[in-house]
């Protein structure tokens, strides 16, 4: 958003630097149940982003003062590995990762049936192995698959994707160059069955018309991501399903 470049981000034919059109998202790969020791897990690749999510719980809430007597709390930890960006990222919690942990937990609270587990805690860990813009969306996408894989009761699975503006064009799923040298970035997450928006941020400037266009692009793309998420979960259990036996 801040930088300036002579790079042509969108050419005269509407082609972007990685060969996508304005309404195309990067190739997405989702895999569920990749870790053995966590209750649930997922691995997501969106373009060059590589994200791992793990879920524990519901379990006893520690520290105790965070307990809620009426519902479970979702504790989320978003962490970027030192090697996830081209300059070494200083390891540990920073302002950005606290923010992303918070918004991810709040987005997930909208779908998880937390009222079933008073006083308990559901812990979500998101590790960014490789970053190329859009990691909060990739992280949330992975986290919701991991929650479903952990067998945690939830209303729906949450897909997330960003839209934005670069070189004066409204684009879906910005990559790193478009994010750095573009004019705006709008990550969105929603509940597909009701089209409720559970995460919406905007960094940069856009007109109202551009914003509406960005939202509609992202909402459509979210439904595509949703299908991939369901696909990943079904794939994990497909074998078992085919052979499913009916006693008890």
């Amino acid at each position, binding site marked *: 958003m801040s930088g300036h470049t002579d790079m042509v981000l969108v050419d005269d034919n509407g082609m972007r630097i990685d060969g996508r059109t304005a309404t195309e998202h990067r190739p997405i790969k989702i895999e569920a149940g990749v870790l053995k020791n966590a209750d649930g897990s997922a691995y997501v690749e969106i373009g060059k982003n590589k994200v791992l999510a793990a879920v524990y719980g519901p379990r006893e809430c520690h520290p105790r003062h965070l307990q809620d007597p009426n519902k479970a709390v979702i504790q989320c930890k978003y962490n970027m590995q030192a090697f996830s960006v081209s300059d070494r990222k200083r390891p540990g919690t920073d302002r950005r990762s606290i923010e992303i942990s918070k918004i991810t937990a709040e987005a997930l609270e909208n779908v998880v049936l937390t009222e079933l587990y008073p006083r308990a805690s559901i812990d979500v860990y998101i590790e960014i192995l490789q970053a190329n813009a859009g990691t909060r969306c990739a992280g949330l996408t992975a986290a919701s698959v991991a929650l479903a894989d952990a067998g945690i009761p939830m209303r729906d699975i949450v897909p997330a994707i960003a839209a934005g503006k670069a070189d004066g064009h409204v684009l879906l799923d910005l990559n790193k160059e478009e994010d750095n040298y573009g004019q705006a970035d709008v990550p969105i997450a929603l509940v597909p069955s009701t089209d409720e928006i559970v995460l919406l941020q905007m960094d940069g400037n856009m007109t109202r018309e551009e914003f509406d266009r960005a939202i509609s692009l992202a909402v459509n793309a979210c439904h595509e991501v949703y299908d991939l998420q369901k696909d990943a979960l*079904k794939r994990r259990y497909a074998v078992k399903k085919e052979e499913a036996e009916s006693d008890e």
Partner: protein
Amino acid sequence: MERRNAKPKRELVLPGDLLDSTGAKVGEYAYERDGNVYAAVLGIKNVTPAGVGVIPLHGQYMPVAGDLVIGTINDIGPSNWMVDINAPYPAPLHVSEVPWKVEFGDTSRFLNIGDVVLLKVLSVDESKKIQVTMNDAGLRKIEGGMLVEISHTKVSRVIGKSGSMIQMLKNMSDCRITVGQNGRIWIDGEGESAEAVADAIKMIEEEAQSHNLTERIKEFLEKRLPAEEE
């Protein structure tokens, strides 16, 4: 066995999948919105007279009053023990719920940290506060034998249709086997046969959804058990 083909195909559902739109009642692990029933967990769709619900394939054990569970002592208080029963909540065992007369502060003479006990869930209240008891037939401190842990969702497979699987395991191996609803299984028997049973149970957990499991477990045990019947 032919009956299986007549049954409706078992359907894998994910959270948010529509289960019913004809006004059926909401079953387990399902929720209602605008008169329709949706799945809340990943599992197999389950239609019962009580409602349309889901049989989960994964997830934490949630205690229900009356469940037989196997727990380990976690912590000792002057008038109670804290027991880990694999649930999201701690389970206190009060001195009034054990078959012994325990003086105040004398709890560690009876049960110590690390001891394994066979318990019954006495009550689970609205805020999910659990109470367990040892005052019932067969409930006791467990000594000897071995403990196997599986996912609680697979317990029904280990028991089998009206106990067919567990009965076969017991008969073939000559072991004492106690299955806790929380997924912990205690096996007591001759070293080799107990190990064979433990492996068989692991196999049941892994292949819980497959055909003819009882038959295959039988074959497996025949191979593994020491030949002693003469």
